């Protein structure tokens, strides 16, 4: 077995600074290798650079220094159009604030993840329905986000993230707005998806969620350290 073929992404000496004033070095010299189907958690105090790191991994932002390769491809030379295509095809996002469109039904919100990704129109509804089944949300398909509980909203957002069948799920404090009961639900869901083969990288303040990961990292002042 060739270990390189198993590598999903790799950061080598990646830094990201925001030009000030004052200049902020949000991410310093990060090295990270994530294999396919991996389960990674990142903890750290607020402002330590966790979101900056996830944005980098999700191709929503570019490193100031260093090299980021995704699926064996160096992302530095990619034009915005190709980065976008790669992102749409490979990466699903879950945010702390859900980012559901308030005036669309849950089903429409889930289908939104497929309109840019090359899924033929005829299949979108069916796949969205399947994704909602995975998170046990089919009974809320016609509801509007405003009428859902926090846990239900995050499940809808997870369904949206997986409907496009990505290889990598990036979750930035997915339980940050939830109580501990519903946090447990979300944790179960992430574990289930990971067991089904999806690589998961989750940023969290919840030790329970962090502990469930195969590899745990700690961030402080922009420095990434693995907890062994």
């Amino acid at each position, binding site marked *: 077995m060739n270990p390189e073929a198993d590598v999903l992404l790799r950061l080598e000496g990646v830094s990201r600074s925001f030009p000030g004033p004052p200049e902020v070095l949000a991410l310093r010299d990060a090295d990270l290798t994530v294999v396919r189907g991996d389960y990674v958690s990142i903890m750290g105090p607020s402002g330590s650079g966790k*979101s900056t790191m996830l*944005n980098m991994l*999700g191709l*929503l*932002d570019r490193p100031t220094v260093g090299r980021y390769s995704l699926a064996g491809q160096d992302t530095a030379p990619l034009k*915005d*159009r190709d980065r*976008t*295509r790669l*992102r*749409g*095809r490979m*990466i699903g*996002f879950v*945010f702390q*604030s859900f*980012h559901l*469109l*308030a*005036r*669309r039904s849950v089903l*429409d919100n889930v289908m*939104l*993840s497929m*309109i*840019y*990704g*090359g*899924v*033929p*129109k005829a299949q979108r509804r069916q796949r969205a329905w399947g994704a909602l089944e995975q998170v046990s949300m089919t009974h809320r398909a016609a509801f509007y986000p405003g009428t859902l509980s926090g846990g239900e909203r995050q499940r809808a957002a997870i369904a*949206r993230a997986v409907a*496009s069948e990505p290889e990598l799920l990036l979750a930035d404090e997915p339980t940050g707005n939830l109580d501990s009961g519903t946090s447990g639900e979300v944790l179960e869901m992430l574990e289930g998806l990971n067991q089904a083969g999806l690589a998961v990288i989750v940023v969290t303040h919840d030790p329970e969620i962090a502990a469930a990961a195969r590899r745990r990292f700690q961030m402080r002042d922009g420095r990434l350290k693995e907890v062994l």
Partner: protein
Amino acid sequence: MTSRKSRDGRFGAGDLLGEAIRGLAGHPGRLALTALTVVLGIGALVATVGFAQTGQRQLEVTFNAVDAVHGVVKPVDDNSGLAGVAPTAVLPWDGDQTAARLNGVNAAGLVSEIDLDNAAISAAPVIDPMAPPTRVPSVMAATPGLIDAVSGILTEGRWLTWFHELESQPVAVLGQGAAELLGVSRVDNQPSVFINGRSYTVIGILEQVERVNGLIDSVIVPQSTARRVFGLEAPDELQVKLKMGAGPMVGDVIATALSPNNPTGYEVLMPLPPSQLRQRVTAEVNSVFVILGLVALVISAVTIAVVTFMSVMERRGEIGLRRALGATRLSIAAQFIAEAAVVGLLGGLTGAAAGILATVALAASRQWTPVLDLRLVGVAALLGCVVGVLAGLLPAVRAGRLEPATALQEGT
């Protein structure tokens, strides 16, 4: 990896329009307000064109009835001082027949005033010298075709015929005014009038004519009778009634037909063609109101631009999300342009409807027939759409340029 050619399933026109319409439907109040400005602009333009077309049609209707179909030819005025340059031509006695044969001429007739000093004209054979002097009608000569050439209407009897003309019959048609002066109101009892003692049988009473108003106050006798009895030297005027729009064509040839050797000896007055008339009228009406409509459209473009810009700022979270889901800068920009275009299109269609209503209302208030080229609705909708696209362009580019990470962070 999918090849570039297989775009099947990619974010296409249908998806774009769907997203745009749903985006707009999320803010119906804002949509209505923005579209309203377009409605005003387009409505003003459509109403302007509608008013112009309706008014102009009305003008044509009134104009057609008289001026657009009547022409006249007469010898150049001797006293104009131009006599040396263009020697006066004489109208031939059969000029009416020559003219009637021309293409575009529906009817032609000759008419002349008879100069009679102190003529004695009455309905009684002998004039009582003791009777107080009364106003005396004048005498005119005409050919059979004149009645149609001047759109005359008879109340009683009939007009002069070719029999009367060819046989120089002692008959007369009385203009309404002359009939009243002479006390003649019926012709079925074959009344006579006497001119300098000679008797003429009255065969008809003329109620109304166009162009030659003197006829109403005259005793009208056949042209040949006037030549024989009064020594008429030449016809005064040739009156013609034309087919619509034939004015320029007839004007080109009529003088030569009447006098091949001296066509410049006539003064020819023919109506303008209707198309030329139309251009003149529309040009006048449109220039003012079109500017008003355009100003309204510029205002609506600014409104759309501002509202779209607000919408972009408000929906940064959504923009960030869409980028995360795989939307390119172009898809984002296209969505906002499409939204602005739909606003413009809706405004354009509604504006066209409003403009049509205004035109119909105006026409109804004056009892005119509303006239409006319905292709205008398509043009109006398109114009609204173009205004929307132009107005949406700048904010849409801004939306496309937003950094996804920043947009996600700033917008919730």
